[in-house]
């Protein structure tokens, strides 16, 4: 998967969690949670959707790697190389 495709995947998952999520002003190097008003319960949905859609097992200690859109892409790029 390309970096752009991974980015779109994350945004698609977030849109699925909150259909009113506003991506226009989203800064890719700032925490997603603060910008999109997501709580830790919503955040778990991102992890679980990645598991469901791409059979990715993300261990709990790696959750901080998913904090910003950029860090998501960096973390997921090698894991989704063949996807």
């Amino acid at each position, binding site marked *: 998967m390309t970096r752009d495709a991974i980015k779109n995947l994350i945004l698609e998952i977030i849109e699925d969690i909150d259909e009113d999520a506003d991506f226009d002003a989203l800064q890719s190097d700032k925490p997603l949670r603060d910008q999109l008003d997501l709580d*830790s319960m919503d955040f778990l949905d991102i992890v*679980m959707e990645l598991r469901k859609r791409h059979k990715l097992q993300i261990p709990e200690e790696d959750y901080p790697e998913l904090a910003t859109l950029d860090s998501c892409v960096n973390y997921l790029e090698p894991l989704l190389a063949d996807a």
Partner: protein
Amino acid sequence: MHVPLLIIGGGLSGLAAAIRFARFIPDVLLLEQHSRVGGLNSYYYRNNRLFETGLHAITNYAPPKEKNAPLNRLLRQLKIKRQELKLHQQNQSEIRFLDQESLLFSNDFSLFDSEIAEKFPASHNGFRHLIELIDTYDPFRPLPFISAKKVIQKHLQNALLTDMLLCPLMYYGSSIENDMDLGQFVIMFRAIFQEGMFRPGGTIKDLLDLLLNHYSGHGGKIRTRAGVSKILHTDKKIHGVLLESGEEITCDYLLSTIGSEETYTLLGIPSGLKSMPRLGFVETIFEIQAGTPLPLAHDRTIIFYNSDKAFSYQQPEQLVDFNSGVICMPQNFENLPQASFKEVRTTHLARYEEWELLKNNQDDYKAAKETTALTSLPVAEKILGNFAQNIVYRDTFTPLTIERFTAKKKGAIYGNPIKIKDGDIGYDNLFLAGTDQGFLGIVGSMLSGVSIINQHILPRL
């Protein structure tokens, strides 16, 4: 049979937990001992009509824009759209201490604030400070018991107002006598006064069917009439359960929503929990003709009343204490379709041990139920206006009814006075959710199921 997750109890916390898990991993099995799901919030048929049990109103109302409000978080977590529930807000409710004072409240908090300013002017400033405390308090931080009553009294300097604030919060969710933990008070104050009350447009059956449809849509499985007789375990590791039918089901994780002591019983070990009085309740449903006017309180949704000099919330000495209680008129929500009947529901504190004495004598038990209804009736009429002549049907539930249908120990709807907030009782793969976790009301118990799945189970699979 083996499943990754097995859930005991098809009440609202079990159903919510099941949906939450099945959204990501469909292999989940929900076990319900009764023939119907819902637990305390269920229904039965009489006179060709459906009667709801449990549900008066749902607390924690929130408008759609408040994303982090418990109701909206819950719906997001379960992927249920608000429109599916068809929410109707309460008209207005009242705390009435007879011959003393009355306070109105609704889903607009400014009404309650202005009522207190008008009727308790000397305490209004203190009330504002109390609100500041509530708005900044973290009720989920683990702390030893702090007396809410003392904190409120310190702010308000008025015993009557303190009791009036506590009365609805205790009746809608306190399992302990005459006081509440401050954290619990904050949760309940937000849920009832600051957020408010609503009900779904349909019956509780429609709500339960909606949840079941979502659950089966994700691929989840359910078995009713499937009582559990034993939890199979070696030390702290759970292997599965033995059903009353003799069948064995193994699992990786077990979630129990049936109560802490009830769970220890299935584990076959003493709970070690201190024994405290469990609060029981009686409820009478009066079905009355649709045209009955109820002139003294025609638009009220819920009235929390007290007719004694001081308010006491404790296990009565006798079968029932009629000095205080809750009167609910379930048709009084905004824009509900006109029904062909009205209901008045009255709830009072009851003593399980006294009812238990009547267990084996059907005639005495029936007579006690009759007396309960006939004593409750004039209390309700004094507050609402006369309606006795328009009653078409009535029925009374006792702590024994609740125990029989929900398996709640001593019929105590709010469970054990001791709460296990994180659902962890020291087992590797068994967790508790529901009433004994300290979350209350329909939204609270459902969030409890969801949060235990999120916290303890999903990240480990």
